[in-house]
């Protein structure tokens, strides 16, 4: 169960890191989705609740509510606001990227930076990551 969650985060961190090359994301996503192991409640729940393609559906729904964030480059800027952030993120190990994203999500929840997407109360960072996947 945890493995899939971890995989998801790894993939998301990769997505952010390589968002400048959106063409590669689809393959990464598909590979992750096909290769995931069943049973992760959150991912499985997302998939069941919002359709067969959870993160993409959440991402699409998010972008419907925030169309001004509808480009990958914009989302990357939102997630990693300055060049230094992006460089640091790109250089970081996968473990560090995961930690950074987790911390960011935690900060969002702490600060009340939540968005309601398909009924889900998500950290804004999570929703933006899903949107990034959608744009891949």
């Amino acid at each position, binding site marked *: *169960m*945890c493995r899939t*969650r971890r995989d998801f985060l790894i993939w998301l961190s990769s997505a952010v890191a390589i968002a400048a090359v959106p063409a590669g994301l689809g393959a990464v996503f598909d590979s992750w989705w096909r290769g995931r192991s069943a*049973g*992760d*409640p*959150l991912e*499985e*729940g997302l998939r*069941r*609740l919002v359709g067969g393609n959870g993160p993409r559906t959440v991402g699409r729904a998010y972008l419907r509510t925030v169309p001004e964030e509808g480009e990958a480059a914009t989302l990357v800027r939102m997630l990693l606001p300055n060049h230094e952030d992006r460089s640091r993120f790109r250089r970081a190990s996968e473990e560090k990227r995961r930690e950074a994203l987790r911390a960011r*999500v*935690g900060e*969002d*929840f*702490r600060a*009340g930076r*939540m968005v*309601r997407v*398909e*009924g*889900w*109360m*998500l*950290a804004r960072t999570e929703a933006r990551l899903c949107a990034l996947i959608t744009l891949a």
Partner: protein
Amino acid sequence: MLTDARTLPDGTEIESDVCIVGGGAAGITIARELSHTPLRVCLLESGGLEFDPRTQALYRGEVIGFPYYDPDKFRLRFFGGTTNHWQGVCRPLDPLDFERRGWVPGSGWPFGRAVLEPYYARAQEICQLGPLDYDVSTWATENAAPFALPETSIESRAYQQSPPTRFGQVYREEIRAAANVSAYLHANVIEIETGSLARAVRRVRGACLTGNRFTARARWYVLATGAVENARLLLASRGTTPEGLGNRHGWVGRTFMEHISAVGAILLPSKPLDRSFYETHVVRGIPVTGHLALSPDLVRREKLLNAQAFVRPYTMKQTLRSSPALVSAKMAFESGTLDDDLIDHVRALIAQIDDLAIQSYDAWFGAGLQGFALIAIVEHAPRVDSRIMLGKERDALGLQRVRVDWQFGDLERRTLSALYEAIASTAGQAGLGRVRILPDDPEMGWPPGVRGAWHQMGTTRMDENPTRGVVNADCRVHGIENLFVAGSSVFPTSGYANPTLTLVALAVRLADHLKKPGV
């Protein structure tokens, strides 16, 4: 002594020092507290020792406003009253609940929680609970620990669980044996009579369904028939005051409150969650159940009402097991009266089955995927438009039936949303999982399945100012020197905790007051 009032000669006059009308949790508690005193106590109970459909039918009425349960389904009219089907969930009101909150019109009790503290301690014993200790650390164990939550807007708290005490069974022999207490069964009070200036009750008039009539005279009278019936009897007692007794300023029946219950969100864990603390678990012999509640800081900061959520597996079976309608139906079945009431019971049951649970559990989660329903209980603000009135129809004794108009609005809705958002935020921070709020569209308003929690309160509210309430801090009806009201009808505000423990504490306090010389 227990006497069947149907055996009394027509026109019997009962004399006592204290006449208690109603043999539920409040009435029985006051009678017990006054036993072994020099006072002669008379307790008039409409029902017998068992459920009887003819007596229960006296409770029938109509519902207008927000959909609510049929008035003859949410309460029971026999010795022990509604404790015959209560579930025993107990917790004192929070200190916050007693405070005057500027954003909640009508809030503020005449006294703080500290005044009730010694009475709560005695109520704990009466309700067969543990000590007056609701500190969550007392009830956490290695095998049942609360979620590790950040110090934010949500707190884990605990209820204690009464067996539940069936007052009519547990205290029956004590009442029967008390030399100074005379309890009359099948004795319906149909009017409270006062002198011409309505400053004092002169007697109550009663009747049995068999036709014989009686009167009861006393120095003091205590109305303890439940939040709906207390208002009904006062409104119906119009011999000297056309607006009803204690109703000079129009408060009788108003601010009818009922905890708002909704299955409006689901917690989907991101890791296996041990929710043993939130299930009923036994600690040093005391059954307790955890829940999640809004922190007082958040309530004050965001100007909300009080609210909590149970964390329950999202299954229909669980919902059914805890259904009050199922309990009522079971009792009717056991007393052999289910056939008469079958359709009503089935209707009540269907109304209580959580359609969300049925649809959602199978369709969304499927086998092997465990979600948790967050069952909210939201405080109901005292609203003048939420009220008990008299209807046009009359019951078998000629008394006008009740009309229930349950109303709530934006403040309750905003509190429910804030509760779920706070849980979502806390769950996200703590890594517990994610929350999905229903319905998807916040513009749709209340989630489907919103309903009352079977906790009627506030129809004879307590306020030291006679222009803003029905009873004073001693629970005496303003302007009537010898009439008191017991029960949750006197609550100025409702908090979120089940009302029984508080109403028993208030009953003990009232009994102490009546024991004082020169009341």
